[in-house]
């Protein structure tokens, strides 16, 4: 058993760490806002700054590291991706190294040129249109697509939480066969911005206090005509898209939580070493020390779990159970860490405008998914019980 990272991975990790420390962390204040009432807080970095950072990352050879080589990316393995995301999650600045949803990895060569490449280059934004207003899951999807004369006619409404931009297209999931199970009969379409019958509204970038709230983009399809060549993957097989890559994304998301938790620990340690109460530095108090120790132990356990699952993914092993375990543990871990950090910080963890507050709020939001966690428990339990005969 070797817990040592390869030289290549160590180099990537330290390069990303330096980039985050030197380039992204100094920008946190401009995202959180400098004014007393935080009226200048923003959701994203200015476009010019993003372009500049993108250029830097390209010079480092790290743009699109998570994208498979055949699609023009770096083809970094899951463990490498986890290391990159863990470092990137240690800042609240919304910037990634050319992340594209694996749903688009199944584009045909023509679609790759027209849709995938512009998304990777941040020239176009892909609006992932899966959810429907007022619907919890995808089982009772109402959006329909009917095929007539080589065209599909799309009818329905969708809500997307993707980032809005000037130039965009929608990745729409719609029912093409109505008498099948929820998993079957759903087809994915790439719908151009100017397709007749397609309208998108909302999702505009907010400033000030409202920058904290991400408004969904409302997508309306009224007899929207989409040519058959814009079908992504096979007809009726939308939920089979990205099959090869999506399970590993769950582990990479776990790595993001580990990164965020690591930053919370760092901020908490600084707070504990500098804050005094009743004439004593609070790091001398046993309760604060215990909180720090518990946070560090939880992060360590989560990190090992993420790395082991990522290693399994890279070995080509089945990771349904491991990925579920990562999601279950890491989601609870980040909530626990934020809760303990709030004890160390007392009030400042809830003061708007501090990075700590943003991290704690995001951590609580991440863990507010009880039903999703129950699903993970179900996956794990089924795997344990598989093949076990009772009685």
């Amino acid at each position, binding site marked *: 058993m070797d817990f040592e990272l390869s030289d290549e991975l160590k180099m990537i990790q330290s390069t990303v760490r330096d980039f985050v420390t030197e380039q992204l962390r100094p920008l946190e204040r401009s995202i959180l806002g400098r004014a007393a009432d935080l009226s200048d807080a923003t959701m994203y970095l200015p476009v010019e700054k993003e372009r500049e950072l993108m250029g830097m990352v390209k010079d480092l050879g790290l743009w699109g590291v998570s994208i498979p080589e055949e699609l023009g990316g770096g083809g970094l393995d899951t463990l490498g991706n986890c290391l990159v995301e863990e470092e990137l999650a240690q800042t609240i600045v919304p910037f990634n190294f050319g992340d594209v949803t694996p749903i688009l990895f199944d584009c045909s060569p023509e679609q790759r040129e027209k849709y995938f490449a512009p998304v990777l280059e941040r020239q176009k934004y892909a609006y992932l249109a899966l959810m429907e207003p007022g619907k919890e899951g*995808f089982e009772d999807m109402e959006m329909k697509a009917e095929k007539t004369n080589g065209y599909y006619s799309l009818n329905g409404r969708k809500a997307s939480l993707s980032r809005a931009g000037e130039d965009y297209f929608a990745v729409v999931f719609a029912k093409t066969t109505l008498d099948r199970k929820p*998993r079957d009969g759903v087809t994915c379409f790439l719908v151009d911005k100017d397709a007749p019958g397609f309208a998108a509204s909302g999702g505009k970038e907010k400033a000030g206090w409202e920058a904290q709230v991400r408004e969904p983009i409302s997508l309306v399809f009224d007899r929207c005509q989409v040519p058959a060549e814009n079908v992504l993957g096979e007809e009726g097989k939308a939920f089979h898209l990205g099959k090869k890559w999506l399970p590993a994304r769950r582990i990479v998301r776990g790595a993001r939580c580990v990164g965020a938790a690591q930053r919370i620990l760092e901020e908490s340690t600084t707070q504990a070493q500098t804050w005094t109460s009743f004439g004593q530095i609070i790091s001398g108090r046993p309760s604060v020390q215990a909180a720090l120790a518990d946070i560090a132990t939880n992060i360590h356990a989560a990190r090992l779990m993420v790395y082991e699952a990522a290693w399994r993914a890279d070995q080509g092993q089945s990771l*349904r159970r491991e990925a579920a375990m990562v999601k279950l543990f890491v989601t609870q871990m980040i909530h626990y860490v934020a809760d303990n950090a709030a004890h160390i910080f007392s009030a400042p963890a809830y003061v708007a405008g501090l990075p700590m507050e943003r991290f704690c709020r995001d951590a609580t939001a991440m863990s507010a998914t009880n039903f999703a966690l129950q699903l993970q428990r*179900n996956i794990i339990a089924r795997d344990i019980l598989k093949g076990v005969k009772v009685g």
Partner: protein
Amino acid sequence: MPLREQADVKQVETVLNEILNINSPPVARCRLLSSGFNPGHTLNITENIAGHKECLACGCCIDVCPFLFREPSRREKTEQRTSMALEIIVGADCDQCDACVLACPQVDTTIKNYIVNRRMIEVMSRLEQRIGDEDEPDLDLFAEEALS
């Protein structure tokens, strides 16, 4: 706190399923199907209450009801904490989760076991449907993509 000799579910299965299918809190009707009060649990009283099936007004069913948790203002309609109060204030808005039956101390364990093993399995199958088999796509992965 039912009697040691409890209701045989096989004998009451049809009625029980009918009760559980009605869109109203089933606790009171399940209590009436049960064996009644076990005298072993009484304090020192002279009256013989063995087999009595009245509501104890413990309020467990009211406390556990998820609908009343979502709409606590309905609780204020009455100070009573009986199964009848539950039926009146929840009525047809019942989620049919059967939590009230499981919380009631007067319902037979045999009936509770039946509900857990035979009725609640439907909830698990709904989860199963969402996850799919080993080689089927996990829809939750798509939900994660849509939300992140």
